[in-house]
Each structure stands twice: as C-alpha cells, then as structure tokens.
C-alpha cells in the first residue's frame, strides 16, 4: 500500500467518520487530564488503582452475564429483556442454598430458604464467606447455575419456542412480559428489602505508589470463577462440534437448518450455556458486593446490553471485552464526573459506539 493511498484512506476516514475522530480526541483529552492529575498529585495513584480494580470486578460480572445474552441475541435474533431477571433468579436460588447450608440448625429453615426475608436472619451473622463457609458458597454457586439453566429452558419451552418464527420485536416485547412476571414474583416471595449476605471477607492491602489498594477474598474468588468459566466457554466453542454449529447458526439460521444442523438442539445448548453462566454471574455479583435485592439483575441488565452491543452481538470475546470496558467506564468515570452519573457514563459510551460503529468492536466474529 502506497503512502498516497494510505493518506487518501486516512482522509476519507476523517471525512466519513468525524464522530470517530471526535471520540478519539475526547478519549485522548481525558487520558491526558488523568496523567496531569497524577503528575501534579491532584489524583492519587492508589485511587486510580482502586477504581481500576473495582471496574475490573464489575466488568467480569457484566462480561460473564453478557456471554449468555450475546449468544441468545445472535442465535435467536432477539434482545432478551428477561435476562436481567435470570440473573436475579440465579442469585436468589444460589443464596437460598448457601443460607441453608451455612445456617442449618441456627435459624429456621423457612427464613433461610427465603434468604432472610423481612430481616429474619442475616448473612453476616451466619458468617457467610468463601473463607468462613466455603462449602456453602460452592454449593450455592452450583445451584445458582443449575437453577438458571432450568429456568431459561423452561421459559424457552413454554414462552419463546411457540413464537420462535415471529420477528425479533415480538420476542423482545414478550421477554419484557417475562421480566415483569419473574421480577415481581421474586419480590412477592423474597420481599423488597435489600439484604446483606456476607460477613466481612478477609482482605489484603497492596501498597501502590502513594496508598493502598484493598483486595478481598471475594474479589479473588470472582477473578478465579469468572476467568475459569470464560476460558471454558472459549474451549467449548473452539474445540467442539457444538461451537461450530452455533457459529453457523448465528451466521444464517436457514442455511444451518438446510445443511442439517439440528437447530433446536443448538438452541437448547445456547440456553444451557448462557443460562448457567448467567446464574453463576448473579451469584458471584452478590458474593462480591455483599447485598442482594430483587432489582439487582434488572439494574445490571442495561449495562450488560451496553457491553454486548459494544463488543458486537454474537461475539463472546466481544461480550467479555465490552463488559470490561463498561465496568471500567462506570468505575473510572468518577475521576471526571459526579458519581451519580457513573452509570449514565456507561450508557453514553454505548450510545456513542452505536453511532460510530453500530456493529460493535468485535463484529464479524460471530460467537467465537
């Protein structure tokens, strides 16, 4: 490629995509501001480090939950607004299990199964944590995954499958109905209070230039679980026939059907993988932040959508990367804007990406 061509391409890019150029400029400006802040001592290195760590944790949860949403979005062709409530459902099922194992004999079974609804029992008092009650946490983690799988399969069988041939908007509207029914049913059963679920986990302080970054055991658990599952999905999709079939279906469902890929089986696998990851993400989210409420998943959902669109619908790496970008944006934005707008900042990033590159950062690499 000659210099002239490179130049003319660059010029065309600049003319065609003023938005992209502007975006890069703003990003450079913000980064420059951060560097100046660090150099002059206006911003502490340890503060930025803490925010980075916090954003990373958030990003892992969003990314993990986003994989399932991204897969169903591309293969079933609709934005599933009930996904957030699968997260919550997974979390409640898992935490009911954890409470049961951790508190058996110390509180009545009903209160434990309702995750201490109405303040009947407290997670902190039961000493719940990865170090305090490791078995209860692992059991809860597994149940959360299994329950979310069962839930998403059941909802698919009864609600989505009969209208599979309808357009994406019909399915989207239906999923809103599912979301409503699930969310408020959970509120009916588990109550509307946000409860603390864990005891203070042991933590260590890492000294970083001018202060400490605190990292606790639940952070590390999240890193291990999320990292391991992401790697597992990667291997599954790269190494198995199932992965190939999913990629084929994401590209063109009709073609996949003609070429003999059993689409319903692929659909079921997608719900199993996606649902499982979603349930686990819900459980880990609660373990990490230490509170649980019936609105948790719904509040997370829009950030997950942002991540999935950012990464490119259908790409699991995109969902993970998008999750990290969104998580870090939400956390780091407080360096420049009031914290009330942190979530707004994440949405703005999503909207900007939709404007500049609607197909997402990892587009054209469907499902793998």
């Amino acid at each position, binding site marked *: 490629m000659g210099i002239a061509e490179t130049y003319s391409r660059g010029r065309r890019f600049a003319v065609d995509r003023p938005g992209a150029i502007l975006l890069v400029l703003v990003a450079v400006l913000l980064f420059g501001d951060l560097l100046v802040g660090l150099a002059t001592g206006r911003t502490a290195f340890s503060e930025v480090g803490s925010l980075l760590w916090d954003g990373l944790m958030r990003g892992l949860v969003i990314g993990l939950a986003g994989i399932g949403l991204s897969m169903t979005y591309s293969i079933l062709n*609709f*934005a599933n607004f009930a996904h957030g409530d699968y997260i919550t459902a997974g979390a409640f099922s898992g935490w009911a299990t954890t409470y049961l194992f951790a508190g058996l004999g110390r509180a009545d079974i*009903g*209160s434990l199964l*309702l995750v201490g*609804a*109405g303040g*009947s029992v407290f997670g902190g008092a039961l000493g719940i944590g990865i170090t305090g009650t490791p078995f209860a946490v692992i059991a809860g983690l597994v149940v959360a995954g299994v329950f979310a799988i069962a839930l998403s399969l059941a909802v698919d069988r009864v*609600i989505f499958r*009969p*209208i599979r041939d*309808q357009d*994406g*908007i*019909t399915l*989207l*509207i*239906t999923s*809103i*109905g*599912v*979301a*409503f*029914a*699930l*969310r*408020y*049913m959970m*509120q*009916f*059963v*588990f*109550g*509307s209070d946000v409860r603390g679920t864990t005891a203070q986990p042991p933590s260590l302080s890492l000294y970083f230039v001018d202060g400490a970054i605190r990292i606790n055991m639940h952070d590390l658990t999240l890193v291990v679980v999320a990292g391991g599952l992401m790697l597992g999905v990667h291997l599954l999709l790269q190494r198995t026939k199932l992965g190939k079939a999913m990629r084929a279906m994401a590209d063109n469902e009709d073609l996949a059907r003609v070429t003999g890929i059993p689409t319903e089986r692929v659909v079921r696998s997608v719900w199993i993988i996606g649902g499982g990851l979603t349930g686990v993400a819900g459980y880990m989210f609660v373990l990490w932040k230490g509170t649980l409420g019936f609105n948790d998943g719904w509040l997370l959902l*829009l950030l997950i*959508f*942002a991540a999935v*669109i950012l990464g490119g619908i259908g790409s699991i790496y995109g969902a993970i990367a998008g999750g990290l970008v969104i998580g870090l944006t939400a956390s780091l934005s407080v360096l420049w804007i*009031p914290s*009330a*707008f942190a*979530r*707004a900042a994440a*949405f*703005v990033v*999503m*909207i900007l990406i*939709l*404007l500049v590159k*609607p197909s997402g950062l990892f587009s054209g690499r469907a499902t793998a």
Partner: protein
Amino acid sequence: MSVREDLADRMPGGDAGLIVAVLLVTYAAYVLVGVGLGYSLRGQLNTIAVLTFYIGVFAMLALALNLHWGYTGLFNIGIVGFMAVGVYVMALFTKPIYTPGGAAQVGGLGLPLIVGIVAGMAAAALLGLVVALPALRLRADYLAIVTIAMSEIVRFSFLSSDLQQFQMFGNRVGFGGGSGLILDFTDPLQALFQSVGLWGAYLGFVDAFKAIVPTNPKPVVDGLVYGLFLLLFVAAYYWLLKRTGESPFGRVLKAIREDEDVANSLGKDTNQFKIKSFMLGCALMGLAGIFWLMTQGAVTPNFFRPRVTFFVWIALIIGGAGSNTGSVLGGAVFAAVLYQGPRYFKNLVDTVLPAADAPSSFGPAIAPLISNLNPAPMFFYTVDSIRQLQLVVMGLVLIWLMHNRPEGMLGHRKETAAGIPLTAAHARAAATDGGTAKNAANDAADDAATAGGDSDE
C-alpha cells in the same frame, strides 16, 4: 375479521360509540361493586375521579406511543424519560421564585402555568430530537436500548445532587434531587378557571355540590372536573393524531413502517418524517407526564422508573398498535382492569374484612399453609402485596397477548392513510368529473363529517 371488529361496525356512532360504551361499562362495574358494598357517595365519586384520571393519562400516552410505534414503527421504550423532562422543565418554569424560609428548598422562574407547559413539551420534543438524530438510523432493537438507556440517564440526572439546586437568571432554582421537588405553583384548575374568569363561578358550583356531598366537597369536585379535563385532552390527542394519520404525512409514516427503502426511493426524505413524528410523539408524552403529575403536589425522580413505560406499552398492545381507537380503548382497559382494578379489589377486601392483619412477609404467610393448611395468612399477604402481584399479572397478560392476540383487542386494523376516502368508486367518480375536483373535495369533507368515525376498511 374479529368479533370485536364486527361489534365496532354495528356500534351506533362507530368507533366513538365503542369507546363511550366501553367507558360506560367500566364505570358501571366500578359503581355497582361500590353500591353492593355500601360505599358512601363521596367514596364512589372519588373512585370515579381516580379511575377517570388514569384512563385519561394512559389513553393519552398510548395515543402518543401509537404515533411512534403504530404509525412510524419507531420502537421507543424511553417514554418515561420524556414524561420526566416535561414535568421537571414545566416545574422549573412555573414554580414561584425562591424565598428563604419557605417550604420549598428551591424555587422556579415564577412564570404562568401555560408557559411552563409549553416549555415542558418543547423540552421533551427537544430531547426527542437529540435521541432521534443519531438513533433513528439504527435497527429497531437498538433504538429500544438507546431510548431506555436515555430514560435512565434522565432519571439519574434528576436524582443527582448536582442538579439539586443551581442559579438561573439570578434565582435559586433546581430539580430537588432524590428527595423530590415540591410543585408549589398555583393549583392548575384554579389557574385554568382564573384565566377564563370563571373561578368565582366554579367556587359557586363547588358550593352547590354541598347538596350531594355535605362536607368539604371541593377535593371531590376538583377530582371529577380534572378527570373530565383529561378526557377532553384525550379527545384532542385523538383528533390531532387522526388528522396526522389520515394525510399525506401519515401516508409517508405508514410507508416508513412498511419499508423505509421504498419510501426513500420514491423521493421521501424519510429521516425528516421520522424526526418530526418522533418529536411530536415526545411532546405529547411530555404533556401527558405534566398532566399526570401537576396536581400531585410533588414529584420524585424514582416515579419515572422504566415500568411506567411498559404500562403504556401494555395499554397500546391491548388496544392494538396502529389504531387510534384501539389506543384509547387499550388505555381505558389497562387503567380500569390492570392498573386500578387490583387496587380497587384490595380496598374491597379491606372493607369486607377490616380487622384482618396481613403477615409482613412471605415466610409467615406460607408457614401456616404448610403446617396446618390454613390459607388465610397467605390470602391476606397476597391481597396486601397486590401492587407487586399486579405487575406479575401484567407481565403474564403481555405474554398471553403476544402469543394469542398480538394485534390487540380490535384485531388487525388498517386505517386508511389519506385525507379522503380511498375507494375505487370515489376515485372513478373523481376521474370522470375531472374538472370539478373542488366539488369532489367538498363532498369528501361532507362524507367525512357524516361518517364520523375512522374510515377503516
């Protein structure tokens, strides 16, 4: 052709008749239940006023959404954001100027109510423009996500302490943050009647009402009159949107919904049409938001959660997207059955069994059911939680509708997008007496006047 549609055909007065009939049946049901339980007249009138209020706001919102989704195919799930902007900007303009020591933390600009309402609508339309400019190019599901994200950004903004109070033209104004904003402007009804010089007459009317409601009749009358006022605005929305739909403008919107590329290749600047349609709908949503909240005394950001948006969607889907008559019916049915119905039911239970004590959570409610088959606590907990359960019911209704009747109550309605009846007979007549197009136009206007309702096929 559904049974319902045949019903509309046979109904005297066409669509308008159908709407009136549905309203009458609804009111009759509410009143009869009230009479059966021996409600006081005051209680009955209050029930009617509240019911009318919700029918009014949901019908207006469904009509506005129908312009977006039913006509233009724009998937807007950020309705509540436009409502919020409408109300907050209206409050900013009309709240009295801040005086230290008053009840309100912040003041406004002290302008007349009508100025505030227009400003609120304009602000909602402007927000619509900001969303529309970039987002209308996007796929329907992306527009959905952008609009809902926008409505959440709006809510977070009004929640934030940074906009709680600020200076504007030297006045201390603001949006009150999470603790809300007191709407301490003149009572809207009073302002309305004063502006036409009828405030004295109205007070006299209220006084005369003492014959029916002996003590303090004003709140009752206010509620009823405000409900009536809202129904008038429903009629105005209906009129406006019917005219919009039955015109060349509406024809282009319909074509955009069907296939934007075709409209574009026929020389229509589809983006312009989409933006106009979107902004008009947003302004109407802003106005509906203003009407919903301006008599409530205060407004908090968390009122504007996305669930309100979904209420409007359910109302529209019940009635049938694409039809203005359906939108009004959907709004009315949603308000009467799904929104107010369960709450009314709870009141009834409270009246019949006043002493019953509901358990505070699910655990104590279900324990007696399991241990000694006593369903009473579960029943009372269920009734007590009706506000949550009604949302479960709404979700299930939405799922049911999408499975069984996605085209809504009125069936698949096709309202002709033209200012004149588009029939072969009419066209042939127009073609044969070619030169007298003006006469034909007058005839058409007469036809439309006598037909009254929508000219559906």
